[in-house]
């Protein structure tokens, strides 16, 4: 039988709160419900295993940083940098999130139903089978995919126009896929637009379906929609920027 533990975070500093969460996982909990969260940082940091942590409230900065395995579900918004350098596992945020979402993420999935702030997916990276995925239901802001080095960043724009400019500033790996057309003027130097091929669509379809299932959305119209794919203009778009050969 699954073991559930409930923790009341009201008025608790993040250090003892995270100690309680760690202890629960050590004691074999499969699901940890944390209630009354109000900005406590670093929830789920460095956790391993496959437990599910439900965060009820506003998750503080650096949620699930370095996390490797567990699932974190936030019923509320998150502050800056959820999924910072996350290794594997999944973060599902039912609200919106602040700046630098998925900062340096190296594996796993982050699904945000609402909007994200500036610099989403900054320096996401991939290596061999490690390929991080960030999906945003609403809009992303400027400097989306800044210095991106790998992984998939998907923006569905379900709640209106996409606000991001300077998309893919410094991108040198990975791909940014945005529903609808993206004006060339919104791309940063070093990024280029490509049409989404059937192969690309087949690759992102399971991700869209999983996202839609998590948030109770109708997946098929999204799978069939028109997308713009943004990738690095070359393997070394900034070869001449800081060094001269």
């Amino acid at each position, binding site marked *: 039988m699954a073991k559930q533990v409930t923790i009341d975070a009201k008025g608790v500093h*993040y250090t003892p709160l995270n100690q309680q969460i760690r202890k629960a996982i050590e004691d074999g909990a499969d699901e940890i419900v944390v209630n009354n969260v*109000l*900005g406590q*940082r670093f929830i789920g940091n460095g956790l391993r295993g496959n437990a599910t942590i439900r965060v009820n409230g*506003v998750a*503080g*900065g650096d949620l699930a940083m370095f996390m490797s395995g567990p699932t974190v579900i936030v019923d509320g*918004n998150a*502050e*800056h940098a959820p999924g910072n350098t996350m290794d594997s596992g999944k973060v599902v945020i039912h609200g*919106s999130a*602040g*700046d630098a979402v998925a900062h340096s993420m190296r594996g796993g999935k982050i699904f945000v139903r609402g*909007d994200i*702030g*500036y610099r989403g997916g900054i320096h996401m990276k991939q290596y061999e089978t490690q390929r991080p995925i960030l999906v945003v239901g609403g809009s992303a*802001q*400027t*400097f989306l995919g800044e210095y991106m080095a790998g992984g998939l960043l998907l923006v569905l724009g379900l709640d209106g126009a996409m*606000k991001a400019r300077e998309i893919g500033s410094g991108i040198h790996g990975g791909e940014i896929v945005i529903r609808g057309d993206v004006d060339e*003027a919104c791309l940063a130097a070093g990024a280029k637009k490509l049409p989404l091929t059937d192969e690309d669509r087949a690759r992102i379809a399971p991700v869209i379906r999983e996202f839609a299932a998590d948030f109770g959305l109708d997946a098929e119209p999204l799978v069939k929609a028109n997308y713009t794919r943004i990738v690095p203009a070359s393997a070394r778009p900034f070869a001449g920027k800081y060094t001269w050969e």
Partner: protein
Amino acid sequence: MCGIFGVMDKRRQMMDGSGIREALSIMNERGSGEGAGYVAYGIYPDYRDCYALHVFFDNPGKSKAIVDATLEQWGTIEHDEAIPTCDQPNLKANCTPWRYFFKPDASLAPGSASPEKDVVTSIVMQINASANGAEIVSSGKNVGLFKASGWPEDVADYYRIQDYEGYIWLAHNRYATSNPELWERPDPFNLHDWSVVENGKTTTYGANRRYVESFGYNCSTGTDSEVIAYLIDLLTRKHGLGIDLAIRALAPPYWDEIDRMPEAEQNLNRALRFAYGSATMNGPFTVVAANPDTMIGFTDRGKLRPMVVGECGDRLYIASEETAIRAMEPCVESIRRPAAGEPVIGRVAP
């Protein structure tokens, strides 16, 4: 880092300082315990017609006579007293906070459109520029500034801010990068009407300071928020810009954004950038500022610092983290994160 917080009640309903203390201290991770401060509007109704001067004395026995003499030369002291404080175990007081309720003599600034404020400005510049052991930290009507080197809770308890009731509050939790010892250094900063709290650091401090000093302001603390307070006073009061244009002068759109605007907008924005190039602030910052009728918030154009806005009934909140807003207003009705260059301007109902 740093954590900032502002709240305004559009119908001037009063809030005591206890909720603001809680909102600021929940962002303690953004501070380092070496500076916190609060400003409140509406706290001195019995002296609403006087300029309330909050002064830090190194030693009142030595310096008070100098300030008394300066004030008497420029107007009338209606009342003065030590600001009530309550010793805190974690706070080492290194100055004595004092307050004057002062009526400037408007006839001493002939030809000015705002003579009282010109008199007060020159008193503040004169006293703060000289090494006389006195530092005026706030100087507005019905407004007071309380700051010290310490954690937000200790500073709040030291000044007993729960005993004050205001309709606008600004607060600042400092992450120290330099100068931990002086109480006048941390935010907030005030010059009569305007108070400023900032999260960040402008990289244009030198250019901005030279510019504002060329108009007679004297930047004595070496802190960028002081310059921002003077810039806002200069642009709004002396140059007559509306606050929306003043913000746009301080944090203007990039040239390529201006190029995409309709022609009339382009002309206005070009003119502002040409006229106020030296006032333009760069670097990472979020600024929240207030005067008796307004609270504003804006960020740097690259959006390198956070700014969250909440609204609930007549209350407008601007903070570094949503958490701070919810600490004071658990059932806040709307939360949003404005884009860079999208100023937040809240006005008190007339």
